[in-house]
């Protein structure tokens, strides 16, 4: 066929023509501009409006940022330097306040000789969370660990940590790195122990105090496991909790004191009032985040439970917390809590605030997770039932993994909210980095009237941390995606 056909055609081209360049208006930058910026009258108008807005912003801010001074000891000196360099009347940023008061923005009134302690705690935190956050990607995990270990160790050295402490921190980093590399499952034990270590290092005092608290948890866990082995999990749980409470109330403190007598191991205690700056924000934020997730899951399950009493109590709690502003809860923590506790009790203001922030976040978390639970097709619940799984087995193996995966954006949104809300502690007199700390620094004569620089600095740090959290949520969503769409 083709041969016959070929004979009838007088001319067949047997070489390719060189391809011609596309018309200039249809390719490259011109095409992109035409399509994305100038495709129609409305679009042109929008582009011009956008450019005008951008120009207004840049032309106002550029000189101010361009004239920035990083090296001065007071705002007056800053203004003098700017006037000398750029002439009288020139405005400019005085970021010297950040450089000069850096330690206060980061640590508040934490004693300077102990600055290495929060720094090491921060480095260790990465070792506690990296195996969980980056369990899939070895490269990512090690990048994060290496950067944070080197940075926090270097910071410890620069902040003048004593030799023994440096040795302990360095050895800890190396040991943990080895543990994560060679026994990744064991490394999770460190993640569980970390909060107690962090509390001890931040607040100081006897090492045996946190150990005694931990022992209470261990006691409860052991009794529960024992009960579960004999088929009485509920009874075991109740007994375990009772035993732990008894331990904490009666025996634990005495044992801790005795151990301290036998093997003295203590850090200089640090008052809660001296916490401030980003140390305070991170302490409250991280504690609130870590504790609100499990509490939120329990509340969400309680709200979806088919036991009417449990459900009603959960609904009441969640709706109450979600119905009032966080600021009123913080006022309750600072003013009213003394009414609710036995006469004479007085416990730490940071602890009170952490409890309130946790309860607040847990209620929101519960609603987010409830959305995830409700979004699961009912077939999943019925499938779990038909397999003969018990309630907790079904939740643990089938329902929660899927429900939590669906709710990741909401959960991380709540985390971000908690972290941003830590700034509200300023209204109960704590030294948050945004208002109270900045006000304190502005109250000194040298930095009177420095408004914008502290705001820009704290705002940038909050932005970086919150933005990183939301990007991580996107990464997690992609990683956990199992459907084929």
């Amino acid at each position, binding site marked *: 066929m083709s041969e016959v056909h070929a004979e009838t055609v007088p001319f067949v081209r047997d070489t390719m023509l060189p391809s011609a360049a596309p018309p200039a208006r249809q390719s490259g930058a011109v095409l992109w501009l035409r399509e994305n910026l100038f495709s129609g009258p409305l679009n042109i108008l929008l582009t011009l409006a956008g450019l005008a*807005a951008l120009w207004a912003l840049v032309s106002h801010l550029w000189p101010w940022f361009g004239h920035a001074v990083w090296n001065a000891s007071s705002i007056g000196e800053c203004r003098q330097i700017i006037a000398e360099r750029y002439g009288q009347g020139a405005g400019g940023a005085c970021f010297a306040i950040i450089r000069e008061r850096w330690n206060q923005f980061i640590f508040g009134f934490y004693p300077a000789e102990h600055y290495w302690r929060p720094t090491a705690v921060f480095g260790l935190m990465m070792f506690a969370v990296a195996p969980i956050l980056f369990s899939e990607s070895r490269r990512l995990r090690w990048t994060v660990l290496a950067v944070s270990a080197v940075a926090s160790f270097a910071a410890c050295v620069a902040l003048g940590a004593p030799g023994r402490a440096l040795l302990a921190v360095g050895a800890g980093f190396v040991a943990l790195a080895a543990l994560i590399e060679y026994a990744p499952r064991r490394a999770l034990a460190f993640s569980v122990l970390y909060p107690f270590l962090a509390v001890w290092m931040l607040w100081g005092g006897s090492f045996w105090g946190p150990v005694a608290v931990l022992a209470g948890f261990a006691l409860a866990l052991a009794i529960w496991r024992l009960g579960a082995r004999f088929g009485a999990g509920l009874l075991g749980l109740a007994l375990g909790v009772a035993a732990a409470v008894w331990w904490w109330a009666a025996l634990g403190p005495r044992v801790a004191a005795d151990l301290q007598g036998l093997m003295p191991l203590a850090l200089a205690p640090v008052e809660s009032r001296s916490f401030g700056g980003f140390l305070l924000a991170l302490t409250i934020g991280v504690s609130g985040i870590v504790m609100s997730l499990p509490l939120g899951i329990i509340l969400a399950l309680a709200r979806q439970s088919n036991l009417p009493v449990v459900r009603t109590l959960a609904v009441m709690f969640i709706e109450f917390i979600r119905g*009032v502003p966080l600021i009123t809860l913080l*006022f309750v923590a600072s*003013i009213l809590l003394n009414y609710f506790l036995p*006469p004479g009790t007085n416990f730490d203001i940071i602890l009170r605030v952490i409890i309130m922030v946790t309860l607040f976040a847990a209620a929101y978390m519960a609603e987010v997770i409830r959305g995830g639970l409700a979004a699961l097709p009912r077939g999943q619940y019925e499938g779990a039932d038909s397999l003969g799984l018990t309630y907790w087995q079904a939740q643990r193996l089938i329902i929660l993994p899927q429900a939590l995966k669906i709710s990741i954006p909401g959960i991380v949104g709540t985390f971000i909210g908690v972290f941003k809300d830590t700034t509200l502690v300023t209204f109960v007199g704590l030294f948050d980095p*945004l208002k109270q700390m900045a006000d304190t620094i502005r109250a000194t004569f040298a930095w009177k009237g420095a408004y914008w620089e502290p705001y820009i600095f704290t*705002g940038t740090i909050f*932005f970086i941390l*919150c933005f990183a959290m939301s990007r991580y949520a996107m990464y997690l969503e992609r990683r956990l995606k199992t459907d084929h769409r």
Partner: protein
Amino acid sequence: MAPASGAGQPFRLSMLIHDRHYRALLIQALVFILVMSLAAWLVNNTVQNLARMGKTFDFGFLFNRSGYDIPFSLIPYDSNSTHLRAAMVGLLNTLLVSALGCLFATILGVLAGVLRLSRNWLVAKLMTVYVEVFRNVPLLLWILVILALFTEVMPAPRDYRPAADGAAGAQMILFGTIAPTNRYTAIPAVVAERDPGPVSVLGLQVDAMVVAFAVALLAAWLIHRWLRAWAQYRQDTTGRRPVTWWISLLLFLLPILGLSRLFGIHLVTPELRGFNFAGGLNLDNGFVVLLLALSLYTGAFIAEIVRAGILSVSRGQTEAAAALGLRPRPIMALVVLPQALRVIIPPLISQFLNLTKNSSLAIAVGYPDLRATLGGTTLNQTGREMESMILMMGIYLAISLIVSAAMNLYNSRVRLKER
């Protein structure tokens, strides 16, 4: 597996653990007892503590003279009014800033959300920057920054006057109608020349103009409803829908214009007299700052909600509607919007509630909201922390529960029916 329930079997003690029915009862009883004993412990402590401090639990202080002034009030109030009235002033201020904030945030959010999806690269990127920057930084920072902007950068009222040597003073913005100063923001006021005064409706003193406008708008709305029903009827019987939109527009516009004319309502722009602006309305900067910050912050969240809502309607829906022969406007009104709104409205309402609760950050700008009056000055003056806090939290809770209830009603109406 345990038997489903103890039907027909005599009750044994072990069934409390092994029988699902009895175990559920046991767990609930235990939880109930635990929670109740916790509550009893707290109440007992409170009673003891109050007795120890010689305090009583009594809301009677609400009817005492408050003795403090509130600079920003929607209802008549002075220092001789009661604490209850002060709380009312605070509540109304909270509701005012929240309602206006919700309005502005919605406008801003819808605009930003739609523009973020725009084909215009520059505008889409600018809106992305706006949304990300405002969402990822604490609201308190925005409040403080805008406050500093007003107190540090804005000119003093007298700076609007041209200087003696002829140099121009500061310029009013928006075609010379609004003058932001470092103490207040002067905006145009709505003035009625022929105000008929209050009339008595069902024993309540209500402003006659409000009544007139309400009646006119209600009537217009009823006629509009009837008009649409008639148009639908014509369409069903003849297949042609009469054009009614301009009648509806006139229905709403004419009474408003007519009544404004009747009462002589017009705008008075503020002008500088002496060292201050007069004629217009001088808004306290605390209010303006709070309103701006709340609107900008919540607007960023609403933009994301709107964007997600629009994206949630798959393209197939639009295409299918087009394939059925619908024109673009009916496609938007009948296919896309109802589905997008189902996704948008619930989180939108929860943002409104968040905004209302966030308005308690008025503490940072000194705007006299509910927390500043009832939970602030009243609390400090009377020393009644317990009562003030309970009342204040109760009010916030009530607002939130009422809105949630309305929300649930809406949700159950629009929910897709599953098994």
